[in-house]
């Protein structure tokens, strides 16, 4: 049986993990390769690395980091941040990344999804969507949530699928950082709307939230950052908890 995926997300700047990471038994929590290895050891099913570099110079550091990650990690990983063309993607996949995620650049230029899907295959194109609910509509935002757009979550997700995305990574900005649970309603709608996998992001605070997002919203995967980085939730315990709630996981 296909299992539900647990995906820690690491923010990278200038080749180092950012945000306070407080990971048990890790000598250098700023070292993405060490942190990623620890997660792989613990049973993470995939990893996501988001490049939040501000400069061109820092971006180059990221590309060489991808190679180091691929050398050391024996599970699949996605990289994202600042990708806006076929030329941006080729070196990342060649360096060993399994998938790339695109966000703002796809909103600006939806044709990018078709181009990437055609060039590299749908399976490695993740369309990341950040949205928040405004006047009863889920409005897509870009640039880390700073800019609102005229796109709506559900039509944009469907369009992304039709254009050739292989997965949708939906982050509810209303839930992100609250630790009050995932956005069950819009995630359920995405599940009922799409025929490609959906990764839920934003709001993880407890093990029960993961059980809910899989059992109620039928998400294919759940992504979280701080609850894992600060050791509030340990992946082996989380997986045992999910198994005990009859959710298929890889142990």
């Amino acid at each position, binding site marked *: *049986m*296909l*299992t*539900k*995926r647990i995906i820690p997300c690491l923010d990278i700047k200038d080749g180092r993990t950012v945000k306070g990471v407080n990971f048990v038994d890790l000598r250098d929590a700023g070292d993405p390769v060490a942190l990623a290895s620890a997660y*792989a050891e613990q049973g993470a*099913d995939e990893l996501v690395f988001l490049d939040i570099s501000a400069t061109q110079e820092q971006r180059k550091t990221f590309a060489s980091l991808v190679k180091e990650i*691929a*050398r*050391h990690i*024996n*599970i*699949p990983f996605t990289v994202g941040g600042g990708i806006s063309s076929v030329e941006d993607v080729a070196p990342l*996949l*060649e*360096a*060993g990344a*399994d998938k790339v995620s695109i966000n703002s650049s796809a909103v600006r230029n939806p044709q990018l999804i078709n181009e990437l899907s055609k060039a*590299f*295959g*749908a*399976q*490695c194109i993740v369309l990341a969507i950040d949205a928040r609910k405004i006047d009863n509509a889920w409005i897509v935002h870009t640039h880390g949530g700073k800019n609102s757009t005229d796109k709506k979550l559900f039509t944009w997700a469907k369009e992304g699928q039709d254009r050739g995305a*292989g*997965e949708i990574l939906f982050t509810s900005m209303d839930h992100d950082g609250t630790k009050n649970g995932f956005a069950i309603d819009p995630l359920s709608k995405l*599940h*009922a*709307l*799409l*025929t*490609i*996998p*959906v990764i839920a992001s934003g709001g993880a605070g407890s093990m029960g939230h993961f059980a809910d997002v899989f059992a109620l919203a039928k998400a*294919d*995967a759940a992504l979280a950052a701080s609850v894992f980085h600060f050791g509030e939730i340990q992946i082996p315990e989380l997986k045992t908890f999910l198994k005990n709630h009859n959710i298929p996981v*890889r142990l």
Partner: protein
Amino acid sequence: MKVILLKYNAGNIQSVSYALERLGVDFEITDDVETIQAADKVIFPGVGEASTTMAYLKNNKLDQVIRDLKQPVLGICLGMQLMCKHSEENDTPCLGIFDEGVRKFKASTEFKVPHMGWNNLTLTDSWPEKPLENNSVYFVHSYYVPVNQFTTAVSDYIVPFSAAMKKDNFYAVQFHPEKSAQAGEQILKSFLEV
């Protein structure tokens, strides 16, 4: 032992090479026919689309080279599909080592396609070996090979399908051992030890 990773327009050559590095295996990435023929083991990776990769193999005369290999050959993912007779992906005639057709998964809201993630193996033959029974391995694919006489491991998604196959010196896996944590490493090792 000389291990060859077959070089062609497949997407996961780098990942497979890193996995072999982690196992401490000496290997060479090449499309040189004589070197391939002289190898003890040949790994035939694969991520991509069936018709373009088959066209590349044909244009470089690698199709017949692969068919004629007598040493153990391991096909991975698209590599396994290309070892079959025909693929529904752009109606592509393939190598025909396994006399089977490759079919497309029917996507629905309940069963998303690609089949992406970790799924468990039910073993039906001596390779992969018993310790891997019920282990989960990582899959990413939209096409599958139905269960057939060559199937040695079965996974289930929408329908039971071939997760691994074997015929004479040809070994094949639909999943990605290079991305399947310890279980994947074990599979690669067991192939290198046959």
